[in-house]
Each structure stands twice: as C-alpha cells, then as structure tokens.
C-alpha cells in the first residue's frame, strides 16, 4: 500500500495538522510530520471524515444505461462520499443473497468507495411475501439495512413482522413512508400549486400517516425504525414526539428537500418530479429546523439517476427522481450553513458520523488514529456552478443545473487511496479486501 501524508489540513477545531496514512489507515495526526510518504498539501482546507450515504440508487443490475456501481461510485467520491448504501430496487430486485453479493462485489471491483447493499424487505418489493432477510444478513454482503424504497411497506402486519424479524441480526427497516391509497397516480405535492397546475396531488398526510403508524409499531415491538426522506413539517413533528418518548426512530432528509419547493413544477419540467415530492416553503423551513436541532438525524441523497428519455417528456409520463451525490455537500451548505442554522461540526455529524453509526459502518464516520483513512478535503469558501454535462453520473437529471452553490470537494481518500484529486477522479482504486465492517 502507498504511504500518504496529507499536509496542512484544517480540523473542525481549526487546528492545522498533518495526517499520515499507512496501509489504508490513519497512522498519525500531528504537526510537521515527515517520512517516506507521497505528500498531498491541502493548503489549510477542511478535512472531514468521508461522507456516508444511506440512500443511493445505483441502478446496477438492470438499468446500467442510467447508472452503474462504478459510475455511481465515481459520482459519490467527487461528492466527498466514501460509503454508499445501494437501494434494493434494481432489476432483479436485491431480495436474495445472490443479488446483494453481486452488488457488493461490483462495489469492491470499482474500489472507489464502500458500496453496502440494502436488501429488500419483501420479495420483488411487492409487499406480499417477506424476503429472505436473514440470508442477506449472513451473506458476504452482510446486509443490515432493509428497505422496499420506491414502495412503502404499506401493510401494517408486514411492517410489524419485518421490524420484529430483523432484531435477530440487529437489522434496521428503512421505510419509504407513502400510503398508496392516498397517492394513487399522484404527481406532486398537494396544495395551492397542484390545484393550479392540475397535477394530481400527493398529500402530506400520505407520508405522515405511515410515519405515525410505524413509530407506534416500532415502539410496540421495540425495534429500530429508520424513516427515509422526510419531507413535511408534520412528519418532523411526529419524529420529534417519538424521540421525546424514547422511541428508537431515526430520520433522514435529502438535500433537495432542504432547498427546493413545489413551485418549481410550474415549468412542468420533469427534472423537478421526485418521490416524495418537493413540498412548500414552510415544510422546507421545518426540515431545516429539524435537521439543525437533531430531530432529523442525517442527510441522505436519494440519488436517483434516470435516462434523458424518462425526463424529456410530459410530466405524468416522467420518472420520479433526481441526482444528488455530487451536489449534496453544496446544497446542505447553502441551506444549513449559509443560513447559519448549523455549523461544520453538525454537518460532519449528519453527513458522516451519524449515518455510519445508524448503519454500523464502523470504518466510516470518524477521523482518528488507527481508523480507516476514509476522508474528504473540502474548500468551504469556493463557489461553483453546477453543470450536468460534467457529472460523473451516467445521467443528467440534476435539478441544480446552472445554480451557483458554495463549497467544493477537493480531495477524497478511500482506505488511504487518493480517489479524487482537485475535484477529479484520479483513476486510483482500492484493491484490498474490504474490512470495513468488523463483526
């Protein structure tokens, strides 16, 4: 393995340090370090533990025209991520040990970040028959997060059973909260804008009724519940209440729901079509408050690539979803730090430390001697203009195209390997066995 010395990195406490990396791990953090290292001088830019995404759609196997594990990993690394969690709604669905092992293997072959597969809760995401979650947990992929994301586990009995079942291997159910009967053919947030545009509304109660129900079930059976992509003020209130009662619930918010609102649909440009939908200004403000005060635990991207033809069409015919990996940091900085709602330490927690803890990714989310050298170097003071043609993703469906945003990812190191240099993929890859989950 290469020996890397990162010179002049700014820690969160503003100390300028050198970080020596040996065999993929942090060997020493100090000042004026020397030795037989490849030196990367980062000129007092901010070093953070690599970001950890608990909600990524990589599309492989099945829809490699939208994204592959490799292209998604590259996009992730350029966004400062060192760990991804690949959602199960691939084709075939990741509902067996075979599929999750395949995705994990593709991630190791890419060697740019850790790719942790998420397993389906039910066979084919259909909500009818429980998937073999224990087999996925015991497979080489060691799955711990299970989700039918894209679909809601809407049957309350199935949800109860799943929450109970995963306790035996310390699993967690990540719920896509969407009551299907209240959202049949729904296209966008239900409200003033949908009534004007004539697009079928997607009421906030469709999300909140499932969140409320699942909080009660999780409490009743004593299991861990994770709520995907919270979008409504009411949902934030429910999670706040649950936490005050000591119920084991965690929640995520996406960058796009922290910045964008439903009025963007007035263009009928389907790049703004996403599930769950963009909500109102007051929802956005409630999400920001919830993320700042700890009600919402983490930021997750819900990176959802789609080919051009699935967006270049009438709104109703278009696919739901937005890219997110390469813009997540900047959007969170724009919505949370530029607004002084939170500081960089909290950002590091919600984008790295806490998601790593929730998922049990023990080699991520910390910056400490002896730990894996999964870290990213940020320039908080630079600004950039989002250009979809420069994305590493195979898709271009970013709603942020043309926006000028703060903060750039300058370097990313994955197990000590310099995978992103000056914002660009280096081509270096980590070839060692992934030892990131210690049992």
């Amino acid at each position, binding site marked *: 393995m290469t020996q890397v010395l990162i010179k002049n990195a700014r820690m969160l406490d503003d100390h300028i340090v050198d970080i020596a990396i040996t065999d993929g791990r942090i060997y020493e953090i100090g000042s004026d370090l020397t030795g037989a290292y490849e030196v990367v001088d980062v000129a007092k830019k901010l070093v953070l533990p690599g970001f950890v995404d608990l909600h990524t759609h990589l599309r492989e196997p099945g829809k490699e025209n939208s994204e592959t594990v490799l292209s998604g990993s590259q996009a992730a690394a350029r966004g400062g991520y060192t760990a991804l969690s690949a959602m199960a709604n691939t084709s075939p669905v990741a509902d067996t040990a075979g599929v999750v092992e395949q995705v994990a293997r593709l991630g190791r072959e890419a060697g740019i970040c850790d790719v942790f597969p998420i397993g389906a809760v039910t066979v084919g995401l259909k909500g009818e028959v429980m998937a073999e979650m224990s087999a996925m947990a015991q497979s080489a992929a060691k799955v711990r997060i299970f989700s039918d994301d894209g679909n809601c586990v809407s049957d309350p009995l199935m949800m109860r059973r799943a929450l109970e079942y995963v306790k035996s291997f310390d699993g967690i159910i990540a719920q896509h909260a969407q009551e299907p009967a209240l959202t049949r053919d729904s296209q966008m947030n239900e409200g003033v804008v949908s009534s004007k545009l*004539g697009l079928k509304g997607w009421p906030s109660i469709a999300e909140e009724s499932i969140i409320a129900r699942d909080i009660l079930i999780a409490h009743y059976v004593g299991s861990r519940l994770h709520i995907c992509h919270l979008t409504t003020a009411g949902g934030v209130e429910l999670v706040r209440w649950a936490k005050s009662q000591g119920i084991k619930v965690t929640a995520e918010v996406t960058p796009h729901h922290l910045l964008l609102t439903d009025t963007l649909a007035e263009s009928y440009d389907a790049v703004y079509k996403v599930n769950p939908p963009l909500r109102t200004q007051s929802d956005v403000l409630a999400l920001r408050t919830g993320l700042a005060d700890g009600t919402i635990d983490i930021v997750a991207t819900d990176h959802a690539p789609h080919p051009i033809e699935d967006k270049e069409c009438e709104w109703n015919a278009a696919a739901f979803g937005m890219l997110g990996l390469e813009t997540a940091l900047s959007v969170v900085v724009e919505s949370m730090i530029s607004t002084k709602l939170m500081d960089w330490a909290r950002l590091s927690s919600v984008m790295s430390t806490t998601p790593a803890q929730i998922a049990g990714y023990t080699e991520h989310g910390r910056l400490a001697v002896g730990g894996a050298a999964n870290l990213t170097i940020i320039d908080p003071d630079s600004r950039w203009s989002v250009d979809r043609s420069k994305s590493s993703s195979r898709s271009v469906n970013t709603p942020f195209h043309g926006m000028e945003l703060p903060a750039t990812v300058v370097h990313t190191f994955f197990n000590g390997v310099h995978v992103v240099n000056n914002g660009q993929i280096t081509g270096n890859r980590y070839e060692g066995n992934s030892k990131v989950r210690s049992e």
Partner: protein
Amino acid sequence: MKNLLSIQDLDSASIVEILNTARELARITDGPMKKLPTLRGRTVVNLFFEDSTRTRLSFEAAAKRLSADVISFSAKGSSVSKGESLKDTAQTLEAMGADLIVIRHSASGAAKRLAESGWIQSAVVNAGDGMHEHPTQALLDAYTIRAHFPDHENDFSGLHVGIVGDILHSRVARSNVILLNKLGATVTLIAPPTLLPIGVSQWPVQVSHSLDEVIGTLDAVMMLRIQSERMNDSFFPSEREYSRDFGLGAQRLAALKKEAIIMHPGPMNRGLEISAASADSPQSVILEQVANGILVRMAVLYLLLGGTRIPTEGVLV
C-alpha cells in the same frame, strides 16, 4: 402571441382581442362567403392523444373555414401506442410541414412542454391538457356570455357566474375561473367538498356546497360533466344523490333568473348533471357554445398564424 397554452398567460386586452376577432369573423362568414382564404397554404395539425370528437371537429372546421390544410392525428392505433414519445411525434409532424399544432393530451402541462422545450418551431394551441387548462373552451364561453349580456362588452363586473360540479378534475373550470376573473366577473364554484381542490381557498372565487342557495343569484350557470370514473371512486355515493344535490332539474330551472343562461361544455349526461328540460329550455345556450367554439378557434388560429388582415366583406386578400 406565439402560442395559446393557458388563459393564465393572457391579459384581459388579449382576451378581448380574441373575442373581437371572433366576432369580426362571425360577421364576415355570416354572409355569402362562408370560407376565407386567409390561411391558404398553412398546415394545422390536430394532435389528439385523448379522445375528443367535438373539440377535434371544432378545430378542424375552424382551420378549414380559414382555408388551412388540416392533418388530424389520433394517438389510438398510431405509433404512440407503440411507445413513441411526445417529442418524436411532434417532431415527425413538424417535419411533415406543420405550421401550428393543436394538442389535446391527458397529461397536465403537455402543451407547455411541447411549446417550450425547444423540440419544435410550430405554434402550439392547447386543446385541453389533463386537469390543467382548456383555454379555447373558456374563450368560447366568454364569447357566449358576452353575446347575451351586451352591456358587459369587455367588462364582466356585476355578472355572477356559477360553475357546478367536478371542479377538482376540470380543466374547463380552471380556465374559466381565470378568464372570468380577468374580465371582472364574480365566480362561485358549487360542488361537494370532495370535488374541490385543496388549494381552492387561494382561487379568486366564492365556494358553495349548495346549488339551491346560489341558483337565484346567477347570470350564467355552467354545468360540468360528471365523468363516469368519478362515480366508482367515492367522490360521492351515487348518481342519484349527486343529481339531487347538484343537478340542474326542474325546480332549480324555475329558480333561475329569467335572463340567466344555462351552459354546458358537453357532452352532457342528461338526467345526471342536467335534466332534459334544462338542456332544451329557452335559457340553454349549449348549442350556441358549439357554434361559437368554431369562431373562437378560427380567431385563435388566425391570430397565431399571423394571417393577413381580416378581409372586409366581398374583398379577397
């Protein structure tokens, strides 16, 4: 004006211009010259992704009376049913020489998407997009109202228009609310709460759940069609109950002001939202609406395709 996508895009002056142009065209074609040579050599494409015989025929008649060539394209049995995209279909039709595309689509925003995505150069007229808008319907309705209330030529203030029925799913209601508001009319929406959109409180209208309370104050009552699919989706319990509460039957017909007019965009469900006696009463202007539809659509095609000035009687241009 390059396209007609929504009433929202028009100011009251443009609305009045379209109505005046339609009236001028009516005056001319009322004489021996039924057909004008104004759009000779221009091609109008009717691109209908949704069945609508009357709207398609109305646009077709309008284009033909202006001597345009008309190509009608219906999605059923076409390449669209084989998965061709809106973009490809529109570009194909433009390559065949379309100057103007009239589009009817089940997806809200389809006309705007077609006009503003840079896919085609042709002018676009929205002939109804999903639950969004149906601008030519609102224009023909305004034309019809104006004809019956000559004191309100370009200003509908003081007129009270009731729109009754499935407001939630109705593009006709949306376009009419916007247009009538722009011309100054008072609008009351009358429907059960299940058939009103959540955001209706922000619309420039009054809302009532009782047709009986409002009926005697209306100058025009627009009855909307109840689609059969609503009946199976618990928006109301039964046709009978809907008809009892919101149908225009004999008693409500009697309660109407004598000078009030009865309107319906068609096709009607006789016996459901409107009784035969109401539909056929002297106060009904439903067939006038059909005739006016052609005039208003002629005006729109004329103004969008920049036809030469309107010929005066007996003078060919």
